[in-house]
């Protein structure tokens, strides 16, 4: 199966001032597993833009796009029926395991966790979804626990401030998180300390999307050996214990 697709925009809606939900489908894209991502060609930009998949249902991909630069600006201006070119599925997947799972997202990082949460629930896994945002206007959906930096909704503070409480309360067998790098580091470190399995979903500027250009490497430690791993192909999902933070 070739991984380049032409898709049609099915739905696009503004969730808040900066985040859009964009849904599209392509007859050539058959399946996406949680964790895998899509990379979308944006007009005349050199590099495709990678996005986590927030849902995949009946052949329709849903991504959440936060307006940051030219690529996301272009995507947020698309209309239903417009055509886009994209690569998918790319990257590795979360492990779908029957373990009580605490999902932790921060900001736009909640996107891939929506799809993972749905799939975990489908196979009967008990999950608890916690998310942190800057303000109540930035909240992207419904969660079991929410914190905001300014306290305008949910608990006041960063999601990291509630990490120990969440772990103590939920007693997860596994933690899965997607957030900015410093937040992932804090969560992975705490999980390791508590001996809880932890998967982190990472982000980095990418060029090829298939591991060949080595532009998006991070360091991981396996069997006492430090080596490079590409976020685009070996990731975006990594074992939190293996990442060299």
């Amino acid at each position: 199966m070739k991984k380049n697709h032409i898709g049609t925009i099915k739905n696009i809606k503004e969730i808040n001032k900066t985040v859009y939900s964009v849904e599209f489908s392509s007859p050539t894209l058959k399946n996406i597993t949680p964790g895998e991502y899509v990379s979308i060609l944006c007009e005349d930009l050199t590099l495709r833009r990678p996005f986590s998949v927030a849902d995949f249902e009946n052949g329709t991909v849903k991504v959440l796009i936060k307006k940051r630069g030219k690529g996301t600006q272009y995507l947020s201006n698309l209309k239903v029926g417009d055509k886009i070119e994209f690569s998918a599925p790319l990257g590795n997947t979360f492990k779908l395991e029957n373990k009580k799972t605490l999902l932790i997202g921060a900001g736009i990082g909640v996107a891939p966790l929506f799809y993972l949460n749905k799939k975990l629930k489908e196979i009967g896994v008990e999950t608890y979804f916690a998310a942190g945002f800057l303000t109540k206007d930035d909240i992207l959906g419904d969660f079991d626990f929410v914190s905001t930096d300014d306290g305008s909704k949910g608990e006041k503070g960063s999601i990291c401030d509630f990490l120990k409480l969440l772990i103590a309360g939920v007693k997860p067998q596994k933690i899965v998180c997607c957030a900015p790098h410093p937040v992932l580091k804090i969560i992975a470190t705490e999980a390791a300390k508590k001996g809880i399995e932890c998967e982190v979903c990472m982000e980095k500027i990418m060029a090829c999307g298939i591991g060949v250009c080595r532009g998006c490497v991070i360091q991981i430690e396996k069997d006492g050996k430090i080596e490079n791993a590409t976020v685009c192909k070996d990731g975006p999902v990594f074992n939190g214990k293996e990442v060299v933070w």
Partner: protein
Amino acid sequence: MVSKKVDLSVKIKDFKLKNPIITASGTYGYNNEFDAFCDVKKLGAVVTKGITVEARAGNDGDRIFETTGGMINRIGLENVGIQTFIEEKLPVLQKCGIDFILNVAGSTPENYIELAKIAQENNFKAIELNVSCPNVKCGCIEYGVNKQALYELVLMVRKHFDNCLIVKLSPNVTSPEEMATAAQSAGADAVSAINTVRGMGIKLDFVNGEFRKTSVAGGLSGKTIKPVALSFVDRISKVIDIPIIGMGGIYTLNDVFEFFSVGAKAVQIGTANFTHPDIAEKLVDDLEKFMIENNFKTIDELQKKLMEA
């Protein structure tokens, strides 16, 4: 769309390529990684990622910066090293029937000799010398920007490698003519041009009254460098007789023709593989279609016509 009427093949010394569309080093992996997007064996050749004697981890920090119409990279030659290439990557190339050019890089003359010898032992059809590396034994001057250093390096490699020897020229020089002439005089069978253009990308944020700056200095590639590349190829084609493989910002068949028109005999596709991962195969198809529709029987014939234009 295979037609007996058109012959897309080109020959560089004894290295016969099915067609003149080659993928550039560093943008296409080691072998069939792009099979998810492309029928890689249809391409004229794949130039491997730059290979060094020992494996290299590459640079720390940000490695990529997108610019208007292009990108800057500072990967730092991360690669698996020649032994792993031969053990793990080569069998895939052979099994898939992919023609390839081994891109070799080193920081000492001995590195290049060793790689040339290994390429010879394995009877590789072609190697491309990456000369944009500093010579650590010689004041860290890049081979590719010093005509004497380049001449000596090519001469030395030539002694150890009999098949097609391609020298990839750096655009970061005062006189492209002198560098191309040095490569030819030292016995190169072809040159490829251009390697990336030295550049820097800067991103500034103004937060809480303070500037935050991130910068990436490295090699600029993509559409934005096409005029630099065309001028370079045009200039060197007037002073050397060996074939030129043109590259720099090629995205369309028309771009390929522009390079043919200034003297390139084949082309490499680089950054465009990131934008359009299926582009190399499309260019082969487009070229064949154009030749069929317009009654060109050989690439030579097409090139002559373009050079007369």
